[in-house]
């Protein structure tokens, strides 16, 4: 089992409204793109976060300040310390030699930044389509453009191409593509449907409420008629063939008591 390590904040920059880039010095076992860490600011909740970068003992995270813990993380100063447990889970088939297209929705961009970066280091090209609801900050755009072949899309057309990431990416996806995706599940469903109809290979990073992170508590299960997967240990990355069998996908999730409820809904018995 991976032990917790102390990380030191080297940078916490707001790259877009409410979205922060954290650089944390913390020597880890070299993570694979798509893996995650459990991060805990002292005295607060321990939360799962996708790895957005790792190099030379420095971990990068992209965090949206949406809850108590993420806000605390984003407010951390240089030199502040936190607990980091990882890398955890199974990542993307990032060494694929097919024509790679990465499709991101919102902060789902995080693991794909690392994927594109690692592939670049390995001499492999990736087209990245980063979709947002509306205009995002210049620092975030800069960070994405530094990666290379990037198309930015906004639903309202305020910057980049107008439309959602999947529609914008659809013209790039062919039978010989390898598609990597991360974002909200309705968007991932569109990606999977598109790839299945075209015959492209696809892998998506999924999200559920993760507690133990090591595959034994059962909090993050996602299931179908004949399949039960632990997002933290069997995933968080799953291939299209598996995802189409997961009837919970884009529909149901376990709540904190272990009751299966509509995604973002409440438990009927609670």
């Amino acid at each position, binding site marked *: 089992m991976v*032990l917790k390590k102390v990380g030191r904040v080297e940078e916490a920059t707001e790259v877009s409204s409410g979205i922060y880039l954290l650089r944390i010095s913390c020597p880890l076992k070299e993570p694979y793109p798509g893996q995650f860490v459990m991060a805990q600011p002292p005295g607060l909740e321990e939360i799962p976060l996708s790895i957005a970068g790792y190099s030379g003992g420095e971990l990068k995270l992209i965090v949206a300040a949406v809850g108590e813990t993420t806000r605390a993380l984003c407010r951390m100063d240089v030199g502040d310390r936190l607990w980091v447990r990882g890398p955890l889970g199974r990542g993307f088939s990032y060494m694929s030699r097919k024509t790679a297209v990465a499709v991101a929705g919102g902060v789902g961009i995080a693991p794909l930044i690392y994927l594109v970066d690692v592939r670049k280091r390995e001499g492999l090209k990736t087209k990245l389509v980063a979709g947002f609801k509306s205009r995002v900050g210049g620092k975030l755009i800069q960070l994405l453009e530094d990666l290379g072949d990037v198309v930015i899309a906004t639903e309202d057309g305020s910057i980049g191409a107008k439309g959602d990431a999947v529609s914008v990416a659809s013209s790039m996806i062919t039978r010989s593509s390898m598609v990597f995706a991360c974002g909200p599940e309705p968007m991932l469903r569109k990606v999977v449907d598109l790839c299945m109809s075209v015959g492209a290979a696809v892998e998506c990073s999924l999200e559920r409420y993760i507690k133990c992170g090591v595959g034994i508590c059962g909090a993050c299960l996602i299931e179908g008629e004949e399949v039960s997967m632990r997002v933290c240990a069997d995933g968080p990355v799953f291939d299209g063939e598996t995802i189409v069998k997961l009837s919970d996908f884009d529909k149901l999730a376990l709540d904190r008591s272990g009751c299966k409820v509509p995604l973002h809904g409440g438990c009927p018995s609670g």
Partner: protein
Amino acid sequence: MLKVDVAGLELSPPLVLASGILGVTAKIMARVSEHLGAITTKSVGARRREGYPNPVVCPLPYGLLNAMGLPNPGIDYFEEVIREFKKLSKKPIIVSVIGSDSPEYVSSRAEEAGADAIELNVSCPHAGGLLELGMDTEQVRRIVRDLKSILSIPLFVKLSPNIQDIGKLAETCEKAGADGITAINTVRAVKIDLLSKKPLFKSIYCGLSGAAIHPIAVRCVYEIYEKVSIPIIGVGGVVNWESAVELILAGASAVGIGTALTQDIAIAKEIASGILEYMRSEGFKSVSEMIGLAHKR
């Protein structure tokens, strides 16, 4: 060769999924049950509980600390999970019942839904007042008697190592009618967070599992075997076939697996084949020949 009868439950191999590990949905239990003789559910009460906020675990070089806080959806929801499991798997399902939350009601509902046995949890070291309950011999005796008067399926009582005399309490349970003993639950512990300088877990107390507690589990099973004739499910720090066999020789009829699943969800397969190989090389023809061999009687 790996088949064993434990209080009327036929287990093959003699390996059981320990309570608190993945026993949330019917499908994951069915998936895990493939290489096990039986599965035990997460502890269930009459009421829904969310458990504690994260962090709920802390891995250590020699084991795992946890303070999940008995999250469960309540028996009204969970009885459907039991029913669904019975459709998916032929393996026995032992329903773990929280000793402090209407155990009679929960157990009878579980039996109606198809549970093959009940495991009474009076030993969680960090939630539900269960450790205190498990130290109160009179209370345990009363609950066991009450449950036995309404149940027709076997009743196991899961005991804590954090008590004065585990053998004596096991004897009390046997006299009150228990059909088996499960031992041990996690060892009560506290973790101090070096950054916050406070206990890491909201509950302050947590439970230690994994390799570190195996010798304690062996001691407890050994002491219980000296005092009772009902079967024992030995749980605690089983990470390989060697640690499983040790518990059997100490007196366990079957062995629980929990924390080791962090290494591999199918680790039971490997442990079962190791036990089989040991039996062949030592000339054992059945698991029952090995149970309690470490004792002089």
